[in-house]
């Protein structure tokens, strides 16, 4: 990663962290304050992203929505990756038969498309933010787990680990000194790519009416609400979606700079 790329990535991350934790710093207004006389204002100097059907400022809402959207995306990725680390590492280090069993289970989970799996889980749990996190996390876990497994297996059979074994190093020391540091970088790249995808999936669930409920300024929910007025006020759907694209594209760029390849997640 070049120096400029590093600085840009850090700035990008810092911007979104700031937006997520202290949105009022960028958009001081109340994202829920309605003002019917100001409804459907096109983007202008006063409202750079325009106003929605209740006269709420879309820019304020997009900025305040970052917290919810990013939180769901991050939590889901953490859940998916946590599960994947356990399953993938277990499969890679386990005896052959157990590896085979875990692989079959992963293949079965992987064969149900991600969004369909998320919908399946919500059919059991009912809609909401918690279920959306679980649904997105669980539906991304099988893809991660397969990559973690192949990563650890490659390392397990590597020459440096063979050397460590020949030198009589203990298992714990081998895991700490060789497996973890060498698996970390690719996994970090994978997680970065995954966060972008998870933000999209989480927004998709809200868009379908299964995640964050409407009055909250969540990007997917805002887009869904704006869809009714698509012909009348394009800015209602355009800007929340743009925020998702910026986050997802940024995550993809950083993930690729970290050495992640575009793979099916």
């Amino acid at each position: 990663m070049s120096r400029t790329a590093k600085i840009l990535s850090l700035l990008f991350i810092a911007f979104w962290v700031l937006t997520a934790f202290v949105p009022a710093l960028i958009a001081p207004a109340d994202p829920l304050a309605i003002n019917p006389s100001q409804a459907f204002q096109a983007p202008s100097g006063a409202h750079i992203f325009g106003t929605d059907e209740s006269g709420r400022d879309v820019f304020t809402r997009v900025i305040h929505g970052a917290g919810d959207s990013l939180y769901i995306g991050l939590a889901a990725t953490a859940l998916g990756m946590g599960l994947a680390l356990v399953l993938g590492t277990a499969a890679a280090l386990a005896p052959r038969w157990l590896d085979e069993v875990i692989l079959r289970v992963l293949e079965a989970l992987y064969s149900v498309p991600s969004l369909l799996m998320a919908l399946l889980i919500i059919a059991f749990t009912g809609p909401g933010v918690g279920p959306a996190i679980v649904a997105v996390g669980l539906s991304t876990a099988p893809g991660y787990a397969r990559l973690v497994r192949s990563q650890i297996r490659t390392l397990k059979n590597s020459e440096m680990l063979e050397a460590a074994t020949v030198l009589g190093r203990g298992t714990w020391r081998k895991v700490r000194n060789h497996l973890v540091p060498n698996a970390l970088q690719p996994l970090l790249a994978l997680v970065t790519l995954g966060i972008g995808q998870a933000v999209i999936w989480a927004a998709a669930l809200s868009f379908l009416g299964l995640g964050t409920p409407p009055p909250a300024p969540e990007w997917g929910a805002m887009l869904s609400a704006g869809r009714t007025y698509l012909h009348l006020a394009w800015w209602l759907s355009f800007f929340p979606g743009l925020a998702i694209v910026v986050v997802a594209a940024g995550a993809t760029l950083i993930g690729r700079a970290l050495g992640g390849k575009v793979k099916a997640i």
Partner: protein
Amino acid sequence: MKLLAWLGRKVGGALVVLWLVATAIFIGVRLIPGDPAEAIMGGPGSQASAEALANARSEYGLDLPIVSQYFLFLAKLIRLDFGTSYSFKDPVLQIMGEVLPPTINLALMALAVAWLLALLLALLAMRANKFGQLLGNAVEIVAAAVPHFWLGAVLIMLFSSMLGWLPAVANGTAAGLVLPVLTLALPLAGFLTQLMRDSLNTAMGSQFALAARARGESRLTVFRRHGLRHAALPALGLTGWAFSSLLSGAVVVEAIFARPGLGRSLLSAVLARDIPMVTGIALFSALVYIVVMALTEAIERLIDPAGAES
């Protein structure tokens, strides 16, 4: 004989996967707190009548021990009896027969369009200068990062609201198909182009490409005779995943364009917590994925001479 053995392995593997998916669903239903009969009928919110609950209890054998319930559930699935969808009031199998074709059509068309676009873009990128390369890179990344639900909305704004060229709702005509197919195809094309360009660059810079050029073949001929195959293989290996992501996208696209299909039926089944319908669709999409994977493997073996022997 080899083909039969391969087919046998595939069918065996498919059965194991379907069994695992079915088992996961069985466990999922039993994990829902409260009365499983009520859960099958849509949860406490559905206010199913006492008679309907009694019917569900006897149909799913809910008064039997859990192991018998499990085998009863599997026995029904083997006979393709997915039960009756209580929100659609029809047998699940019959509904799926109606909603599957439009979705498969949509997905296949989007797959074809995405492949054509990706090949075209990869070919263009090969001939582009440095600025063109950079632009292509940016377009691919954005295309792959665009969510279907936003792309669909933007396309409607552009081509329907502003230009008035195409209908915003899938109305059964060819024109009504353009926007849904594009919405599904563009992000996938972004992914495929990235993959194809990587492998195309490797192939075109390799010894055999150089040798072909030295024999006097034009760059285009080298691309057609050698590069294309190498560009297509890794992307082809992703077809199973691509198809599965298209099915995911279909849920959103069918909702945006008010198009009937598997995705929309699934969405309304989930909103109504219609477990029999959801079970049927999950098993069906798993089956579709397995079939597509087997087909791609077969095609890969045909294209890749090295793969045929292993």
